[in-house]
């Protein structure tokens, strides 16, 4: 156990030096790209926001069912099948049909090439389930249909979220999918989390609709409140143009009224419709509705054919900027709820780094002093090993650009405390061996051999705990499990290679000395 070949010594030295160099690249600047890697600081150390957003799919499902009723009615009308009493109740559509046509409809829905009920061959399932419940037929989304719907609204939502966050201009945001209805947003070094939260909290569904009292215009009407909550108006459900028709939106100072407005330009389809509406509707009020609230409802004075317009509504410059940003980035397919938020200010992050480093330094010092008092020369060997171990650990974290969190620092400190364990097991075993064995080298050899199973068992148990934490834990806790887990490997390496190398050099020089340890 104590013999080291020259090549192995060379390997150990190079390996240690490599990681020490990588670790020190956190402190010094190297020109080389390989050495310019750095440990990432977690949000709890550098400050920033962690937001978990959940997509509220209920409105989407409701909307889809609403559209579906129209589709079903029209589709079967074309086939001369009369459908009556079609209504939505909860998550299902119900309708009545003659008994002779019932089977035809059921067959239409269960046909693999159905025109109105897409079939997913991959999942062997239709989008919709149809069920004959006696008096009427019941249609609702199948399990796979719901999954497909959720996935698609998640895909759209993450795109919009990305655009909005990019527009705010935070550095290196991290935007990820979680499950099929959640989005995780990590925003390092953000100074104004409230602004991002309010931007993400808005669906930004913009519509232009006429203010009307005519209940029979074929589309229906609804009462909507003004944004400031003071008044309400009856607005037609017919949408003239929507946010989808926007090409661009910018905040602007209107020189005539001296107000901040949002100016917009429309795409071709939008411009055409807007032109037509403004020419036929002169004198009428056109309500600009955002997320179910009226921003303003100006009276149309002229035909606007250019496709350019303005939205006024008592904006401040900030609110106009935000509205323009929301309109440019598009509407979310469904409302987002922030179901988890963790924000750390930059100065708390810095305080945590300082506290962590002080704790690390003190913990390290205490352990080193303790080991030196207890084992003298071998304590010194353990201590040097411990320092190299720490550098290798930092080096590996740097190499993989791992994220260091406050619990992660705690993990490093804990590793320092537990790393001596293996050396202690070995040294204590050697002491025991020396009671019967007078030959130093043989005693050291068997000390290493006999302590091995205990060391491996002991480290595997800690490693298992770290692995479970890694998969079950979130954010900062993950950082802890990473340092703890990597620490086990670096500890074993430094104990069996570095400490053993030093030990073997010392023991072969002092092979005849009594009371070596």
């Amino acid at each position: 156990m104590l013999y080291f070949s020259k090549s192995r010594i060379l390997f150990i030295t190079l390996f240690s030096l490599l990681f020490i160099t990588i670790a020190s690249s956190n402190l010094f600047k190297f020109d080389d790209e390989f050495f310019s890697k750095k440990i990432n600081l977690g949000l709890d150390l550098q400050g920033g926001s962690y937001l978990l957003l959940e997509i509220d799919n209920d409105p989407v499902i409701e909307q889809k069912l609403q559209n579906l009723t129209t589709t079903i009615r029209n589709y079967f009308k074309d086939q001369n099948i009369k459908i009556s009493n079609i209504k939505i109740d909860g998550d299902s559509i119900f309708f009545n049909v003659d008994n002779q046509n019932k089977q035809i409809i059921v067959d239409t829905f269960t046909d693999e090439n159905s025109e109105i009920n897409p079939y997913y061959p991959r999942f062997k399932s239709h989008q919709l389930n149809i069920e004959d419940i006696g008096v009427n037929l019941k249609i609702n989304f199948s399990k796979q249909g719901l999954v497909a719907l959720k996935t698609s609204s998640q895909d759209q939502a993450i795109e919009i979220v990305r655009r909005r966050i990019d527009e705010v201009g935070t550095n290196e945001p991290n935007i990820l999918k979680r499950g099929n209805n959640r989005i995780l947003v990590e925003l390092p070094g953000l100074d104004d989390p409230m602004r991002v939260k309010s931007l993400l909290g808005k669906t930004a569904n913009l519509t232009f609709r006429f203010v009307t009292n005519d209940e029979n215009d074929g589309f229906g009407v609804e009462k909507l409140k003004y944004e400031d909550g003071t008044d309400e108006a009856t607005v037609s459900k017919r949408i003239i143009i929507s946010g989808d028709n926007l090409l661009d939106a910018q905040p602007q100072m209107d020189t005539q009224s001296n107000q901040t407005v949002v100016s917009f330009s429309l795409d071709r389809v939008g411009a055409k419709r807007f032109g037509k509406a403004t020419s036929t509707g002169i004198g009428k009020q056109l309500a600009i509705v955002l997320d179910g609230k009226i921003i303003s409802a100006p009276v149309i004075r002229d035909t606007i054919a250019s496709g350019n317009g303005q939205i006024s509504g008592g904006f401040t410059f900030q609110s106009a900027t935000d509205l323009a940003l929301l309109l440019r980035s598009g509407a979310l397919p469904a409302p987002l709820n922030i179901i988890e938020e963790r924000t750390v200010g930059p100065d708390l992050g810095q305080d945590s780094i300082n506290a962590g480093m002080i704790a690390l330094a003190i913990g390290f010092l205490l352990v080193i002093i303790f080991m030196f008092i207890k084992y003298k020369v071998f304590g010194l060997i353990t201590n040097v090993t411990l320092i190299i171990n720490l550098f290798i650990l930092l080096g590996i974290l740097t190499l993989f650009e791992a994220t260091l969190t406050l619990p992660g620092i705690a993990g490093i400190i804990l590793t320092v405390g537990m790393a001596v364990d293996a050396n202690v097991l070995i040294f204590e075993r050697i002491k025991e061996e020396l009671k019967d064995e007078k030959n130093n080298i043989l005693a050291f050899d068997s000390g290493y051999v006999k302590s091995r199973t205990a060391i491996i068992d002991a480290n595997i148990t800690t490693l298992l705990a770290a692995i479970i934490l890694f998969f079950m834990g979130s954010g900062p806790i993950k950082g802890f499990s990473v340092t703890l887990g990597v620490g086990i490997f670096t500890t074993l390496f430094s104990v069996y290679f570095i400490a053993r190398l030093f030990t073997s050099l010392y023991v072969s020089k002092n092979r005849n000395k009594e009371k070596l340890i």
Partner: protein
Amino acid sequence: MIAFNKYYNHFNFLSGILIFCSLILLVFKGLNFGIDFKGGTLIELRSSDDKINVSSLRDKFSQMNLGDVSVKKFGNDTDYLVKFENKDNKKNIIEEIKLNLDKSFGNNFDFRRVENVGPKVSAELLKSGVIAISLSLAVMLFYIWIRFEWQFSLGAILALFHDVIVTLGVFSLFSLEINLSIIAAVLTIVGYSMNDTVVIFDRVRENLRKYSDIKIFELTNISINETLSRTIITSATTLLALLAIYFFGGEILKGFSLAMILGVVFGTYSSIYIANTVLVRLKVSQKTVLREDDKS
């Protein structure tokens, strides 16, 4: 040689009482779950005006209609930790609080940390925490079952349960907060306690093979003594590191390091007085380990 075995019965009795009390506490008093597991909002504030004190701040917060609010000093004299349920999960609650505070105290507060956990997420976090701990216990059981004979597994697992339950009992007794980092601490305790037990068991097994004429009662004592200096040194260095985190690592790591400190103390104790006594009570002998050797 210290006669640890003289006190096996006494300490078993003591552990029994400890576990019993802990379970009573856990059932009737319960744990003080933080917002991670209960849901709610947490704000860490730092005031730049030293005239502001905790009671005036508490008064202000109780006027804000936030439900049950707790306002506490947090480490520094100027730092406060505010927690409330946020039942309706209001979206702009932080802005409202900021406006309210600015109105009453001037612009003197720095919002250093804001955490808001919705009821759905907290329920999920609690579930995954419980799963993580159960899973780790199961994995440990499995590992030690492969490596040792079943009597040893039982001893190790009882020791683990003892450590986890008593640590949680202490948290319940002093109403210390249980949050995500406590789960991490508990898992690390599981690892550490196992580690400690395994080292002694390894020696017990070795000695069982070596001596056929020594009874397990005596043999465990020999093994404990042989590994005693290692037990002490490793516990000592680990505790030194943990004390450094507890005293210097900042307010956020206090609960975590405290749980770990308790865990290391209980873990060391249980390796000696629970794990080993199980071997004694199950009358483990040389046959137990030799049979296992024949098989392999």
